[in-house]
């Protein structure tokens, strides 16, 4: 499908350079800030420190403290200021260091940013991006490990982006910054140092276009953000059992490319949805029910869901590692769906 091809790095003779996910994010920000002087960044330790993850290192040197702005520890305050700035001519990017801190800015994001355009009958708009992080297994415990992106998919007026590769991160972030709506952009903390091909040339990636990360025939693995690599690793394990897994990355949960996801499920007749948010009332529920409804007459087995275990994220490594889907667990579920024998333990 052409929609899918647009997503892959452009075919080119010369080898494409590899950069990290963090560099890709930084490049997207720098390019857009050069292109559009209205783009500013607000957040805690975003300037000289370049954030604790060093994702923004170098930006303040190029754009100055008027555009890369350190704030006090005031998530509600600076997010609200970003909303007002977006309504009046700037295109702010609010940096929420840990996605867990979004809880402090919910009124500003949900009651204000998401609704201003509609409540004003379209006369005001809020072109802003909220960059936040998600992901566990960093031994950061319950208040620094949540993946809360499902909440925002439930709020009309917001768009939700979940990049899974450096290439997607750069192209999607540029699109997010150019979008005239409030966009929640979630980055997996563990992915920042992941390298991947990113062309030098300018490009953007449209929202609502899923990416076929791996083609397969027997089972569809729909995976988001941090779980895309997990699904790809699971696909490799399954290959050894002669099971061909297709991996689909929606890339944006709002808008959701239901068509591509459902088509794949119709083709394979089996689907597993994998997301790092908690399983209950999360992203896996929405996508699983979209598949169950859209591919109803083609499914050989029920759609399976794999989200994070429904417990607060524990600190102890031996416990924390049990809470997030792994390639082994995804593969085991897929084997079960495909009726193949489970691998012997050990």
């Amino acid at each position, binding site marked *: 499908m052409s929609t899918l091809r647009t997503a892959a790095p452009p075919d080119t003779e010369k080898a494409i350079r590899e950069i990290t996910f963090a560099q890709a994010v930084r490049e997207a920000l720098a390019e857009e800030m050069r292109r559009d002087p209205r783009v500013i960044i607000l957040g805690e330790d975003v300037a000289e420190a370049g954030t604790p993850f060093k994702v923004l290192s170098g930006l303040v040197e190029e754009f100055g403290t008027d555009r890369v702005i350190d704030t006090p520890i005031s998530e509600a305050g600076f997010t609200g200021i970003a*909303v*007002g700035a977006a309504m009046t001519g700037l295109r702010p990017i609010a940096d929420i260091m840990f996605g867990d801190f979004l809880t402090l800015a919910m009124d500003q994001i949900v009651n204000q940013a998401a609704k*201003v355009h509609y409540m004003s009958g379209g006369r005001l708009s809020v072109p802003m991006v909220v960059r936040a992080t998600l992901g566990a297994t960093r031994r950061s415990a319950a208040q620094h490990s949540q993946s809360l992106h499902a909440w925002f998919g439930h709020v009309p007026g917001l768009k939700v982006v979940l990049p899974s590769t450096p290439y997607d991160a750069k192209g999607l972030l540029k699109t997010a910054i150019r979008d005239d709506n409030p966009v929640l952009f979630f980055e997996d903390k563990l992915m920042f140092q992941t390298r991947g091909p990113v062309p030098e040339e300018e490009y953007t990636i449209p929202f609502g276009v899923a990416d076929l990360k791996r083609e397969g025939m027997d089972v569809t693995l729909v995976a988001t953000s941090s779980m895309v690599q997990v699904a790809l690793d699971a696909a490799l394990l399954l290959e050894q059992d002669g099971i061909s897994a297709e991996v689909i990355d929606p890339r944006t949960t709002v808008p959701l490319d239901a068509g591509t996801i459902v088509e794949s499920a119709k083709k394979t007749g089996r689907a597993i949805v994998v997301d790092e948010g908690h399983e209950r009332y999360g992203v896996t529920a929405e996508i699983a029910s979209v598949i169950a409804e859209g591919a109803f007459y083609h499914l050989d087995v029920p759609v399976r869901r794999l989200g994070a275990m429904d417990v607060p994220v524990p600190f102890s490594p031996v416990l924390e590692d049990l809470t997030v889907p792994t390639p082994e667990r995804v593969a085991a579920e897929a084997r079960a769906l495909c009726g193949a024998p489970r691998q012997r333990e050990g």
Partner: protein
Amino acid sequence: MPAVVDLDRWVAAYGLMATIRAFEEGVNQLYITAKMPGLAHLYTGQEATAVGVCMALGPQDYITSTHRGHGHCLAKGASPDRMFAELLGKAAGYCKGKGGSMHIADPDTGNLGANAIVGGSAGIATGAALSAKRLGTDRVSVCFFGEGALGQGVLYEVMNLASLWALPVIYVCENNLYSEYTLYTETAAGSLRARPEAFGIPAWEVDGQDVRAVYAASVEAVGRTRRGEGPAALFCNTYRYYGHHVGDINRAYYRSKDEEQRWRAERDPLAILRRWLVEDAGVDPSVLDELESHAQAKVAAGMEFGLAAPYPEPEEVGRDVYA
């Protein structure tokens, strides 16, 4: 000749206050006659605050407003007809009927919108000031809020930021004594004006029933802020004549009829301005009477317009979700 200019200004102010007064009477009538969907929070009694502050602003300046926002909206330049249309959920309303009383916005007159979250517009107003500073305009931004919003932490977060960044924003607290059904002394500890001051923001406290006093303080605050000297805060002591909302009829359990009567009789902002205009400035009372009937006529016409206007088409429900 300043004296005359001044006189015109105050005569105009009287007309504007009369328009707000008449508008709210109209809204109350719409409620009582069951012609208006939902509830509304009337501004009656507080007219001098919105008018006094907005007189010190230019058309390009921003305001953010509250659930009790009709007065701010009119004072900043909106017209009654499209406001009534909005309150009645009609397509001709300022927000196509999608916002209603608690969300009226009119970007053309710098009104970034009423807000149904108490304290919810503090960030927006401060952000508009950030835009003004970054974009190098000389706009200032005014955040209107009731004293009840002093309970909301986000207000202090943005005051701290506005002070640190010397943003051109003015925090205007309309202390009408009550937040819903509770006297402010039961919900606010310490000193009100010490709060912005703690963040390095100078604060003025004025008689919110005297439009000339409100204006004088606003001119000072706006001037300082427009000159780039940073944010300011204004506390206007005022009173709402009606209930918290149009449906709040029996108020004896939280405030006395006697108290209400005293405010209406002794502290009415229109009466106070009228007295000054007639007794001290020698304006002929008939001029003011005429302004009042003109205001009533304009409001009546606006209400007619709103009542006659068509509702939005069903397809509108799905529009404007995304820009």
